[in-house]
């Protein structure tokens, strides 16, 4: 479409606009006023927001490490939303704001609470900042509601945190006490058991049995020895008859003689033979030799007396040894018996120990478990104590108002002035746009070029629109009327808009 075509098109559009001037004027008025009334009835939305700083990076954290449980910031948005929108907090908010019982029935309160829930937006700004935005139709309402909400929320969260950690501490403390008493009971039971059972351990018994067995073995060996000795002594005593008492006498003399000879030899080393000592010894030697000969004669003659037999010292010696050995045997046997008895006892003890072992294990296990839990609880209690202290001193997670809410001075979103402008522009543009569309879409012929295309030959003539003087006058009057009406409409439009703006309507 080149410029000439465009001019023709515009001319046609203008012609159509003129042809439909009244309906255009009316539709413009209807559209414009409709938009204006939408603007008047359009709910004005005010919005205000406040930013919290959710602080858990306090100075104590590095010190505490894992000892105290500090809430995570990631959960904060959810927590803040849950707490802020809880019916408890909302009812408090309503109590605070609407002191004059504006929403007194439960249904109204519920409706209002729902409204607050819908208009509240909580979002995370950065890592630790939480932005709470509230929108509503009146600036006062928005400002008051958000302030009340944040105020109550901060107070409530601090309070609930305190209570929560206190309760947690108390709970754990109670648990600790309970476990402590359990532990004492277990300890007591174990002690009682141990004091009631002195059998000692299985190992002790084993050692004892081994020792006893060794003793028995040794005893048995030594008993065998003693028996052998008694046997041999008895044999030797039976051979007593074949030995004479004389022989025994001669042997004694010979011994004496040898001693004397040795004495004389030693004397001779010092003295001469004439020395009296040597002579004395020589005489003793002769005596001794004579005695020996006599004894040998007695022995060979076989004249022995019973009195001589009983006085044999060797056999007396043997007999005493035999008696000793018999005593030894007897005592050994007694010892063996008693040791064997002891061994029996040890076996019995071992059996007892084995029987008691299961009970002991159970008691010990009870004790161990209770002790372990108790220790753990103690640790936890310390954690809880720290957390409680943190919260009591306000050192746990805290919400600080970073950006206080501002009183919303200007409404948010579409404002009345926008509607006024849009209404005016749309009122003018829409009917013209419709006319343009009508010219484009309407299949009826409006352009010379179209006719030429259809008949495929040049036109004989194009008769321009003629205006008679009368129609010219009518047209002028029409134009005047249209201008007047249009001006009146625009004036009415502006008047309505202005009176709404200043608050008359």
């Amino acid at each position: 479409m080149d410029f000439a075509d465009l001019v023709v098109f515009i001319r046609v559009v203008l012609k159509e606009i003129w042809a439909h001037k009244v309906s255009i004027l009316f539709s413009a008025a209807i559209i414009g006023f409709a938009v204006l009334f939408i603007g008047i009835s359009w709910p004005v939305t005010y919005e205000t927001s406040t930013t919290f700083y959710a602080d858990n990076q306090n100075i104590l954290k590095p010190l505490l490490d894992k000892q105290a449980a500090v809430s995570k910031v990631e959960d904060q948005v959810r927590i803040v939303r849950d707490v802020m929108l809880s019916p408890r907090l909302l009812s408090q908010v309503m109590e605070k704001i609407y002191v004059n019982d504006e929403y007194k029935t439960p249904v109204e309160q519920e409706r209002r609470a729902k409204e607050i829930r819908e208009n509240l937006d909580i979002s995370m700004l950065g890592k630790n900042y939480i932005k709470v935005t509230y929108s509503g139709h009146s600036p006062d309402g928005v400002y008051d509601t958000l302030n009340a909400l944040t105020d109550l929320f901060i107070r409530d969260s601090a309070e609930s945190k305190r209570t929560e950690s206190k309760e947690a501490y108390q709970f754990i403390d109670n648990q600790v006490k309970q476990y402590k008493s359990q532990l004492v009971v277990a300890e007591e039971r174990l002690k009682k058991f141990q004091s009631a059972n002195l059998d000692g351990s299985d190992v002790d018994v084993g050692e004892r049995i081994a020792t006893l067995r060794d003793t028995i073995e040794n005893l048995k060996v030594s008993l065998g020895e003693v028996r052998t000795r008694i046997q041999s002594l008895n044999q030797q005593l039976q051979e007593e008859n074949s030995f004479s008492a004389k022989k025994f006498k001669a042997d004694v003399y010979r011994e004496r003689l040898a001693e004397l000879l040795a004495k004389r030899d030693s004397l001779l080393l010092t003295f001469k033979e004439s020395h009296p000592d040597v002579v004395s010894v020589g005489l003793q030697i002769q005596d001794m030799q004579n005695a020996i000969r006599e004894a040998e004669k007695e022995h060979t003659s076989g004249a022995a007396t019973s009195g001589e037999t009983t006085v044999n010292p060797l056999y007396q010696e043997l007999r005493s040894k035999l008696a000793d050995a018999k005593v030894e045997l007897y005592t050994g046997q007694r010892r063996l018996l008693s040791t064997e008895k002891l061994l029996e006892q040890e076996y019995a003890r071992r059996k007892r120990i084995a029987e008691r072992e299961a009970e002991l294990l159970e008691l010990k296990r009870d004790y161990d478990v209770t002790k372990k839990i108790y220790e753990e609880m103690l640790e936890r209690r310390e954690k809880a104590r720290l957390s409680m202290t943190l919260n009591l001193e306000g050192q746990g997670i805290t919400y600080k108002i970073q950006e206080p809410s501002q009183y919303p001075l200007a409404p948010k979103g579409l404002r009345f002035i926008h509607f006024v402008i849009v209404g005016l522009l749309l009122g003018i543009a829409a009917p013209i746009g419709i006319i343009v569309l009508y010219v484009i879409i309407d299949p009826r012929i409006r352009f010379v070029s179209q006719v030429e295309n259809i008949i495929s030959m040049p036109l004989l003539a194009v008769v321009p629109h003629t205006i008679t003087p009368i129609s010219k006058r009518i047209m002028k009057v029409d134009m005047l009327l249209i201008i007047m009406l249009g001006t009146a409409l625009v004036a009415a439009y502006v008047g309505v808009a202005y009176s709404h703006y200043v608050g008359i309507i």
Partner: protein
Amino acid sequence: MFGNKEKLREVSSNGVEFVEKVDEKDIDAEKDDEAIVDINREVTPGDRHDNKSGGYRADGIDQMSEVSAFSTEELDRLKLLYQGVPNRKLLNVFRDLRTKLAKKSKGKNYVCLVTSLVAGGGASYIAANLSAAIAMDRTKTSLLIDGNLYAPSVERLLAVEPVNGLTDYLYREDAQVEEIVYASGIPRLRVIPVGNNREAGAEYFSTGRMRKFIDSVKSRYPDRFIIIDSPPACEYSAETHILADLSDFVVLVVPYGKVTESQITAGLEAIGEDRLAGVVYNN
């Protein structure tokens, strides 16, 4: 200036074709013409009583009786062209159309049917103005026949109430042509109104009497051009077809913003390609 006028008269009386070179000179000439028309009005006093009887008996243009011409205000009101009309563009359009049609008939007089595609398409307006434009030439006369039985319009060109019309003539065997031809308020433009027998009129169009009538009015004066105002082609295609058969050629009027392409095609088919002189687009 006067000499120039004389020259024009000379040329016209010699029977030469229309002088239709529209340039500044010609416009001046037309202005002079207007003055002459005014003089003529005085010199040739209108005889309305004569016209009431309807007929005329003169044999040449000069002898044609005239009624008192319309004033320019009347002509403006009737949307009729005249020499010196302020809307020169419109005048030129019709003069151009006149020339084109004259070319088509090779200078001879013709019977031209003007039909619109739909009612209110401006066929009557174009027919009247075409007749007026032809009549502007002092050597030519034009006869406007109202064939639009359904929305007759040529009565407005008459200064008097017509008594008889075309349908009366066709209905009554004894009727004379002179009875139905009326002088209009425009010099050299004669008018035949529809008449009083419109209900049955359409049937007479196909009669031999109608054909004879057309032939007689055409052949009576060689310098008389006959324009028939026809009913809309799309709505009354039968009448259009019959009237087109009687005519030398047809001018189809396409009105602004009233017809679709299919209606144009249908109209063209109703007329037939051989009869079609061309299409006039009426804004």
